[in-house]
Structure formats: C-alpha cells, structure tokens
C-alpha cells in the first residue's frame, strides 16, 4: 500500500472533492440519492485514508505525526472523522461542509509533499506524545465543527432559511462539539503536562505555544459554562464558537507563521 501512496492520496482527495457537490445538490434539490452518494464518497475516502494511516503507523512502529506532511494528513483524518460523526449521527449534511472544505485545503496542500516517514527522534518516542497529538487534533477538529455549526446558526438567525437545520438542533450540536472538543483537549493537555515534566522537569511552560494551548483550553472551559447562562445561549454561543476557532487558528497556524515556537509541527 505504501508503495502507491501518491496514487492513494489522490483517490482520497478525489472522493472528498466529489462529496462536496453531492452535498450541495442534496441541499438545493433535497433528493435522497445525492445524500447517499455524498456519504458514500466521504466514507470511501475515509476508509482509504484510515487504511493508509494504519499502514503508515504499522510501517513506522509509531503514529507518524512528526513532520508537516504527517501532521496535516492526521489533522485531515480527524476532521473527516468529526464530520462523519455529526453527519451520520445527526445528518448535518451541508451545515458541516466548511469542515470538509478545510479538509480539502489541508489534504490538497500535502499532495505535493514527500510522504516518506521520518525516523523517530528519542524526544518524541513516548506514548504521551501519541496521546497528546491524537487528542489535540481531534479536539481542534471538534472546535472546527463547532465553528461551522456556529456560522450556520448565525446565518439562520439573520437570514432565516427553511432548508437549514432547526436553530435548537444547531445549538445543541454546537454545545456537543464544544464539550467533546474540551474533553479531548483536556486529555491532550494532561498528556502534554506529564510529557513536559519528564522531558524538561516542569509541567507548565511559558513557551508561547504551550501558553496559547492553555488559553485555548481555558476559553473552551468557559464555553462549557456559557450555555448555562441564558444570555449566552444560542446567538452568543455561536459568536463564541467563532471567536474560539480564531484562538485555535492563531495557536495552530498564527504562532508558527508569525512567531517562533518549539512546537513547529502542531
């Protein structure tokens, strides 16, 4: 399988790309067939992407998330997993398409990169690293989903549209995405703190990326409470999901691009 990685990557990309118009056609035409096609394309792409991830993991002997290619590949996988969870379980369909678009951008940008698996340096050779990375990317993917649901909620609020899901459903799904993201990100932070302690001798670092990860965590802990306050329910919550994703994007991309950090790959 690994010998054909570039071809498989292109097929995965094509599956996700094909799902996009099918979802849009289902949104406008409301024919069941388009939805079946869209979900099938997504599931095929995801099955292939998971198989390739598993093959790379087996080949390397560790979860390969130690260079730009593999982190983007893994993040893309986490985004699709999140999307499929919400779509298969709650039929969010085109309301979650923004996640599919980010995924296409991510996957599209790795198609030209070298998929070779790098050797594992001893500082990354710990299960804490694997847990840290898995939970951080799946957490980020949940926050991206919450962002999408927040955007759709606001569109529905300001430009009501019968085709869009009911605002109460959107609100509940948004709260769920935030809660799941917070739980995953908490596990990511715990693993990161223990790892920092055994590697550096302290569990909290003032290094900018670590500090911003803590800020992300605190922000979403706050959001887990905002839903209990009447004034913040619904619209306020949707705006907070947008703001939160801005903080996530700055932590994931902004720091790497604008400032230097000792976490260049996450």
């Amino acid at each position, binding site marked *: 399988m690994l010998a054909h990685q570039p071809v498989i990557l292109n097929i995965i990309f094509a599956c996700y790309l094909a799902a996009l118009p099918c979802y849009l056609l289902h949104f406008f035409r409301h024919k069941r067939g388009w939805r079946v096609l869209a979900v099938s394309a997504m599931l095929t792409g995801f099955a292939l992407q998971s198989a390739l991830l598993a093959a790379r993991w087996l080949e390397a002997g560790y979860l390969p998330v130690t260079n730009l290619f593999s982190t983007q590949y893994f993040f893309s996988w986490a985004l699709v997993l999140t999307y499929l969870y919400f779509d298969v379980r709650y039929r969010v369909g085109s309301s979650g398409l923004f996640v599919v678009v980010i995924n296409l951008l991510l996957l599209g940008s790795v198609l030209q990169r070298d998929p070779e698996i790098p050797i594992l340096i*001893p500082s990354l050779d710990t299960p804490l690293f694997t847990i840290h990375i898995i939970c951080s990317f799946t957490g980020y993917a949940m926050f991206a989903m919450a962002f999408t649901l927040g955007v759709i909620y606001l569109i529905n609020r300001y430009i009501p549209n019968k085709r869009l899901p009911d605002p109460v459903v959107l609100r509940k799904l948004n709260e769920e995405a935030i809660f799941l993201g917070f739980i995953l990100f908490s596990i990511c932070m715990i693993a990161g703190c223990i790892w920092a302690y*055994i590697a550096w001798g302290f569990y909290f670092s003032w290094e900018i990326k670590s500090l911003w990860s803590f800020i992300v965590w605190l922000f979403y802990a706050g959001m887990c409470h905002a839903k*209990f306050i009447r004034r913040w329910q619904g619209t306020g919550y949707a705006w907070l999901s947008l703001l939160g994703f801005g903080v996530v994007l700055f932590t994931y991309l902004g720091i790497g691009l604008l400032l230097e950090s000792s976490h260049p790959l996450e």
Partner: protein
Amino acid sequence: MNRLTVSQRLWRLCCSLKLAIVLASAATLFAIGGSLTIHFHPRIYGNLDTTPLAQWLLAASRDHAGEIWWLWVTGVLFLLFGLNTLCCFVDWLIHINLRWRKLGEYLIHLGFVLFVGAFFWGSLAGTRTDGVRLFVGALTPVPGNPGTYLRLDHFEPVMSDNGRPLDMINQLTLLRGESVLAETVAKINHPLIYKDLVVTVMSFGQSAKGFQVLIPNLGMVELVPGQHLRLPGGGRLEVLEFLPDAVRHRNQWTARSERLVDPVFRLRLTRPGLEPWEGWYPLREEIPFPLIQAGVRIWPKQPLFANYSLVRANRDPGAGVALAGGICLLIGSLIALGSFYRKRSRGDRPEIV
C-alpha cells in the same frame, strides 16, 4: 421567599458561575496580551522557565516592573478563579446527596483546583537549576537539596549516522551521605525522580581536565588533579588543581573561562629532608624554579578532556498534587462524557442562570 443572610449571599457570590466567567475571561485576556509581551521581550522573560515563578517575579519586579505587572494581575486572577472553583466544588460536596449525578463535572473542577494549588505551591517553594555538570565517578551536590549528591556511574552519548547527538545514557545514583536514595538510567524522556526532585538530561560536553606530558626518566604521564608521581630520588609531585584558562592577580591564579586558553597547574613538590613547595605552573611560562632545582622537566604534549553530562535538577513540591489534579480531571472528563449523553437521552437539561 426567605431572605438570605449576608454570609449566605457572600457564599453564593463565592460559588457564582457568573463571577467565574468574569474572572476566567479577565485572566484569559491578560494571558493573551502578556504572552505576546513574552515573545517580544526575550531578554526579560528568557529565564522564566528555568526559575521558580515567585523568585522570578520578585527579581524581575525590581528592574522591569513596568513590563511584567500583567503577570502579577494574571496570577491574582488565577488565584481568585481557583478559589472560586474550590467554593463551587465545596458547595457541590455539601449538596452531594442531591447532586451526585454531577460527579464527573465536579471531579473536573476538583482537578483544576488541585492543579492551580499545585502550581502556586511549586512556584513558591520549588527550586530549579539548569546546567548541573556531572563527571563520571564524581559526586556532585544537588542544588536546593542540601546533603544529597548525584553520582554519574556511566555516561554514553548516542549519535546518529551523520554524527548528530540523539540521546544521552546516564547511569545515575542519588545519594544522601552513603545511602542510595534512587538509581536509574536517565535519558531523554526518562528522568530520575525521587519525591519532589526530578533530574532530566539536557546535553553533554567536554572540558579540559589536564595534560599529557613527557617527563624525562618517567616517560609519558597524565597530569590531572589527584595524580601523584614518584620522582627518581624519592621525591613526590602532586597535582592539586588544573585551570584550563586562568589569569594572574599578584601571585595567585584564578579561573577565567572553561576554554583551553591559558592553562595552569597547581602543584606540590615534596622531597626527603626539604620543605615541601606548593605553587603554580602556567604552561605558557617557564617551569617554576623549585621544579628545575629538583631536576623535573615537563614537556606538555596534548590536553586531556573529560566528558560531562549536563542535567537539570528541579524540585517541585506541588508536582504530585498536580498529577493528582490531572488524574481527577481525566477521570472526571470520562465520567462527564458518559453522563452527558445519558442526561441528554433523558432530556435532562441543567439549570440555566
């Protein structure tokens, strides 16, 4: 409706979710602003990770009060937020028979309280020391832990094919007096941990420890501190000290740097029936007269180097509590996850304030 007493109202405020959101938002905003200052003032904040926070704050407040005030404010906000969360948790405990279903959520709160408490404790009472040098076989006092020593029994750097250092294998023993407290093979991600002390490996290096010299009648010998040479005719030459780079102040030499620039030996010469001589021998100058008198000629041939391992020795009395907090948070998260779906399937909505 019953009127609340002042203390009841105060308790409500302490447990208030709205207060929590205000405190958390303010702390987050200060942390966001401050983190950018950290990035743009590396000279001020460069050693923030290598010094316990309280010590750092006191030292930095003397010279940079205008730049670091935000850290004081953020610290106070976090402390208040931690206390607020603690009150919220205690309030839950008081009403546990009515609210036991929230076990997961409140374990998360307890975890956070423990974490914040541990962080403040470690920041006040911990010690941090970077760059402790350990030479194979030597006993090195552990900074911040009077009476304890680290002994490096074996050291081996691990290099990649292209010569890049990958790891460092340190067979380490922690001792108090003669008794062994802990022994481990420390390497990257495998520290030596004993109670609140954690020793992590950082790097390694080489330092000049002496010289290989040619002494007529004795041949090639190693001049390193601790070495005793028997001279023909019954005398003894002892190496007391070696400084790889030293400067002279009057007749005394003091160390200037670790690099091999102006090497100097301190020697002691004893000969039967004569007063012992003790003095300095700078390798770039003439051999001291008493040595010439004793017929000792020394031709330095090449420097001798010793490998050392560089470790960090931190003491954090709060680390165990922080771990307990992490475990509470983890267990709480898993329980909360389960109960989230169970409650939702029952249509159980929490109280809205």
